[in-house]
């Protein structure tokens, strides 16, 4: 059947049609057609979900837990999350009406935008950042306002940058620390400045803390734990990164009960609830997953040090990422743009990394390197990157001409 795209477009929503496809997607298509690639391009753990968690899921299935849960999610899970957040980050939420279980933290991002934005409301989004914030703002009728962050500041968000972008229409600030793609974190003092800014301008804050458990120096501090911020903040978390549970799609949103109630309404009409098997597995993760989580964090930490040291040694400056599982080295010394660097590295050495500008314009001049890979894989890939960088420095042609 042939499709007349011109005639079809009149049936489609122009807002959605004009959303640019993710830069990652474009690069994915390129990598997928190349054979024998060593990829450092993945944004998910290389570990498989720990066995005891998988086993809890089998058990749930065997006992016949295959039904809907309440829209908010299993109370048991919400209680465990409340306990965890209280112990780990000193933030207190009522599991009855201040915590919503979502289909991954990604759904929660969408719910926050739709529950809070009115047409034309502006959202300040620090870049480089995860790819879905701006599109969800636009889909909710808002205006995404990028706020650049810089390697000189170790990619932390500053009030100066926010002041330049804020207007009377600003409604919400997005924070994502530890950050994908940079690995940057923010300490309490730096966040306190953002908190004052939010108060002054009466803004809500979406704090996406999905990588919180993967913090390698010091301990993660939740933005919601700052004085006066509990009510202003919608805290997002999940199980994908901490417990290697990406495919289970279990995340959560915590915040003021009136905000959570509106988010729950959207969730109820569009998603109904997160899958019960995943929710039961998440209960097991929180109850008994601490030691496995610590083991994975220790492994990431060792790889992190290794990867950062290797980049700095080969002459690509890499600031020290203190969270998540990404390094974000600067490649401007090669004279190539991010996309050229990644395309040539793929063609010449068959190593895939993601161009920094896929995460916003301020990511130009950088590449995102995931270290969610075995040491063997990392060593092999870094050796190849080093050869490539040397070749760029001497200006010699690629081996294939």
């Amino acid at each position: 059947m042939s499709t007349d795209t011109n005639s079809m477009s009149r049936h489609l929503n122009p807002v959605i049609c004009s959303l640019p496809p993710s830069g990652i997607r474009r690069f994915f298509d390129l990598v997928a057609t190349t054979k024998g690639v060593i990829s450092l391009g993945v944004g998910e753990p290389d570990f498989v979900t720990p066995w005891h968690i998988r086993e809890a899921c089998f058990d749930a299935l065997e006992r016949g837990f295959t039904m809907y849960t309440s829209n908010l999610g299993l109370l048991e899970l919400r209680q465990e999350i409340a306990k965890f957040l209280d112990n780990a980050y000193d933030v207190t939420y009522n599991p009855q009406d201040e915590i919503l279980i979502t289909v991954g933290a990604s759904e929660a991002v969408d719910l926050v935008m739709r529950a809070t934005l009115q047409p034309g409301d502006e959202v300040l989004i620090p870049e480089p950042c995860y790819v879905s914030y701006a599109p969800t703002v636009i889909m909710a009728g808002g205006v995404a306002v990028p706020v650049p962050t810089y390697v000189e500041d170790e990619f932390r968000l500053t009030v100066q940058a926010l002041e330049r972008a804020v207007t009377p229409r600003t409604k919400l600030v997005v924070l994502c620390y530890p950050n994908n793609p940079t690995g940057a974190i923010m300490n309490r003092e730096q966040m306190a400045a953002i908190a004052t800014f939010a108060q002054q301008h009466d803004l809500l804050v979406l704090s996406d803390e999905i990588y919180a458990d993967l913090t390698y120096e010091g301990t993660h501090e939740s933005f919601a734990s700052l004085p006066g911020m509990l009510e202003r903040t919608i805290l997002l978390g999940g199980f994908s990164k901490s417990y290697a549970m990406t495919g289970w799609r279990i995340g959560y949103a915590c915040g003021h009960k009136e905000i959570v109630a509106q988010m729950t309404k959207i969730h109820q009409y569009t998603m109904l609830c997160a899958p019960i098997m995943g929710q039961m597995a998440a209960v097991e993760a929180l109850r008994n997953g601490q030691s496995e989580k610590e083991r994975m964090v220790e492994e990431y930490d060792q790889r992190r040090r290794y990867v950062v040291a290797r980049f700095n040694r080969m002459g690509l400056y890499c600031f020290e990422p203190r969270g998540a599982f990404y390094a974000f080295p600067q490649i401007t010394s090669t004279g190539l743009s991010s996309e050229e660097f990644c395309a040539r590295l793929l063609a010449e050495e068959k190593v895939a990394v993601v161009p920094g500008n896929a995460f916003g314009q301020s990511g130009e001049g950088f590449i995102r390197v995931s270290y969610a890979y075995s040491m063997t894989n990392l060593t092999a890939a870094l050796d190849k990157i080093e050869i490539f960088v040397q070749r760029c420095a001497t200006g010699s042609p690629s081996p294939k001409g």
Partner: protein
Amino acid sequence: MSTDIKKKVLDILQDDCRVSVDQIALMLGQNPDTIQTLIDELEQERIIVKYPAMINWDRFDDDLVTAMIDVKVLPQRNVGFDQVAERIYNFPEVRSVALMSGGYDLSVIIEGKSMKEVALFVAQKLAVLEHVQSTATHFVLKRYKHDGVILDKQEEDHRLVVSP
């Protein structure tokens, strides 16, 4: 040097003993000289005993048979089980010996070219030892997992090659 770093070095080497000192130093954020000194110490203390490769002999040469033998022993005054264990572990056929709690005393692992060879070893060398009360021989038919490693299954990466 903290025991924490020592433990991490041991974990890394146990997983792959070919990892270079330089790489371990980078992974742990330490000086390579420090790591070298530490490994030397661990070797001297015989905490690191040897650097063997883990081999799945079943895939290379199916002829060897392995048996696990439960040995009941009458412990000797003053030296307990140690002297009997020594008499046993000195045989080159014996791969490992451990003192156990529970229903028997020594767990002995023996390798031989055939079941008959192993059975004869048990009958002629082990069972006749003074203070050995009884033996029970169990032959290993197939190994699934050894020292934390699943032997037959190659780990595959099922993830997409690039994701946000």
